[in-house]
């Protein structure tokens, strides 16, 4: 279904820029023309923030149009409608599906000013030189391609990036400590009969299966070769355990959207469930005790990045590189880190955060003053520490990355059976 389509707009802009560049001194023109550039970005809700668009207009001068979609829709659009966007803000596991279609173009790392400062996870896969690489679609495995025009993945830093990493985090289970009343230390607790009718898991198959695998492995029921790329047999056994639990009434509900997970937790329908970090803060902001519980088996992690449409060229492509360099320059990083996410170049973000904020969010230190998010809501009181601790503690304990499996279609069918069971 993929057809090569020349974007009329891109072509005109490119032609205009080329003519202009040949007749006039470039820098002058650049400053004027760039105001007319509009880049269309789409992606999942997490990083598609209007504040970023406004700041781009202020600091870089061009217009960034943002569209937020759910991850299924994002995948579809990136794979099937290359003409409908200039910048795709997608997750790495989506990249694994989309990159081979050739709808995105490789990015020249020599044009990325802060490339050397990007954390190791996105380059050689290692947070520290002695780290082991987690299972699943680790970002660096789909982060590089062989060259401009490449549709393959290479395992070394080739100088051509598929996605520029923007935002990532480590996910775990959310709990209501006030309703549980004892320490929770393992993923296995999700299926503990003690929480019968009070547990939940997310009904997005590609992520739900990973949480299920973390649970089954923690229970000692299944030893996986790679949780991010299961065999049919592993999928069958995982779903059998989950189906049995479902039939026994372990789950109160499944959730599919962010607000559903918040409501389930805040209303006390559920006391333990798979959850995303901002959902925890949303529950907390209602004055309800909720913890993003670090677990001994480690985290399920995810990472996102921005990719450029193959249709970008000329002035628009230059604007896109400008945008990427600005993105990694710190302001966005600080903005994201103050919501609990991590930036790909943490050290540049430090300049945009107070010492207290940096200490709380990144270093896992006690807050010395009230911590607020960029929207002014209080997130933590003095003396509190972040759930899970420092960046090193959290990102150093990743057990598995969000992934897309070779047996994806089989897994989806099995997941549907689980829901219908």
């Amino acid at each position, binding site marked *: 279904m993929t057809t090569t389509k020349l974007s009329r707009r891109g072509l005109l802009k490119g032609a205009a820029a080329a003519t202009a560049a040949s007749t006039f001194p470039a820098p002058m023109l650049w400053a004027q023309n760039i105001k007319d550039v509009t880049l269309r970005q789409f992606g999942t809700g997490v990083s598609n923030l209007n504040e970023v668009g406004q700041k781009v207009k202020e600091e870089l001068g061009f217009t960034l149009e943002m569209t937020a979609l759910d991850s299924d829709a994002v995948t579809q659009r990136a794979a*099937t409608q290359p003409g409908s966007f200039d910048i795709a803000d997608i997750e790495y596991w989506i990249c694994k599906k989309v990159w081979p279609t050739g709808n995105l173009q490789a990015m020249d790392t020599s044009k990325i000013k802060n490339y050397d400062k990007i954390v190791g996870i996105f380059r050689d896969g290692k947070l520290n030189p002695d780290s082991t690489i987690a299972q699943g679609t680790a970002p660096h495995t789909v982060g590089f391609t062989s060259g401009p025009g490449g549709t393959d993945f290479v395992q070394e830093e080739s100088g051509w990036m598929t996605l520029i990493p923007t935002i990532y985090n480590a996910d775990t289970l959310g709990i209501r400590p006030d309703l549980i009343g004892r320490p929770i230390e393992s993923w296995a607790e999700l299926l503990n009969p003690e929480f019968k009718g009070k547990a939940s898991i997310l009904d997005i198959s590609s992520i739900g299966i990973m949480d299920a695998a973390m649970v089954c492995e923690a229970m000692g029921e299944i030893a996986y070769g790679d949780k991010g790329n299961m065999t049919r047999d592993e999928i069958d056994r995982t779903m059998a355990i989950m189906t049995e639990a479902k039939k026994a009434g372990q789950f109160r509900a499944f959730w599919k959207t962010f607000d559903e997970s918040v409501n389930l937790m805040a209303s006390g329908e559920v006391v333990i469930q798979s959850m995303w970090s901002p959902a925890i803060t949303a529950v907390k902001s209602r004055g309800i005790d909720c913890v993003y519980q670090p677990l001994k088996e480690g985290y399920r992690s995810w990472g996102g990045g921005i990719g450029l449409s193959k249709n970008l060229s000329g002035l628009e492509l230059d604007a896109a590189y400008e945008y990427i360099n600005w993105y990694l320059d710190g302001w966005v990083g600080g903005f994201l880190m103050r919501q609990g996410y991590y930036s790909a170049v943490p050290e540049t973000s430090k300049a945009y955060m107070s010492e207290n904020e940096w200490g709380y969010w990144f270093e896992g230190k006690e807050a010395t003053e009230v911590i607020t998010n960029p929207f002014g809501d209080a997130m933590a009181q003095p003396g509190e520490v972040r759930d899970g601790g420092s960046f090193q503690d959290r990102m150093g304990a990743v057990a598995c990355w969000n992934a897309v499996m070779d047996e994806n279609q089989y897994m989806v069918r099995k997941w549907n059976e689980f829901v219908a069971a």
Partner: protein
Amino acid sequence: MRAGNMSRHLTGWLLASPLSLVLILFLVLPIAMIVVVSFWKATEFSIIPAFSMENYDFLFGSPVTYRVFGTTIKYALIVWVFTLGIGFAVAYFLAFHVRSQTWQIALFLLCTIPFWTSNIIRMISWIPFLGRNGLANSALISMGVTEEPLDWLLYSDFSVILAFVHLYTLFMVVPIFNTMMRIDKSLIEAAYDAGATGFQTLTNVIIPLCKPGIMIGTIFVITLVMGDFVTVRFMSGSQSANVGRLIQNDIALLQYPSASATAVVLLVTVLMVIGILLRFVDIRKEL
């Protein structure tokens, strides 16, 4: 003479053409497209035109399909029974117990008030009401009916059916009320004069005369329930599946051909149900 005939012919065609065009463009063509696509193949990203029975093979070969169609029909039947019972009672009350026409209209409008807000809002408002710490459970506990909160009130078949009945009873009330209002009151008086009891009048006079209304209401309710996906998803907490959710899942995963095949099977099922229903009552004749 001939010219006159021609122009009558032409007028007829012209008069019929706007509706036919609309129906062909927006009903026949889309359905034909769905049928065609249901034979296509799909990979994770692309849809490949083909003539393949793959989608139907998978559909009829999977036990999930039968279970899900079973659930869908179960919901439709139970909801039908409740909406019919409640809808008939409400219509009966409005038509035969309320004497003044002003009151009839006022009360009828009252029934439609919930429809001033969106379907989804009416459905979701049940969630805080039925929840573990919701109003229903706190009331039951304070009345001493139960000690522990009742979990089956929410995210269960009970809550799904409750929401359906709440959403769709009016579709039963309106057509039944309509047919009841057309019943000649003298027929009922005649029945009484002939010595029929109230119950006999109901079963021998009123119900047979209301059949077209009941049938129209039934068609509304059954098609709405069988085609629904959002009520089942929210009220069961995503824990049960009907055909609509199966289709929705396929669409989310770009499996349009498989979704189309499921839609075709659902369409055929619903048409069969309606076909059977129409065997009982000739709506055209009785309207």
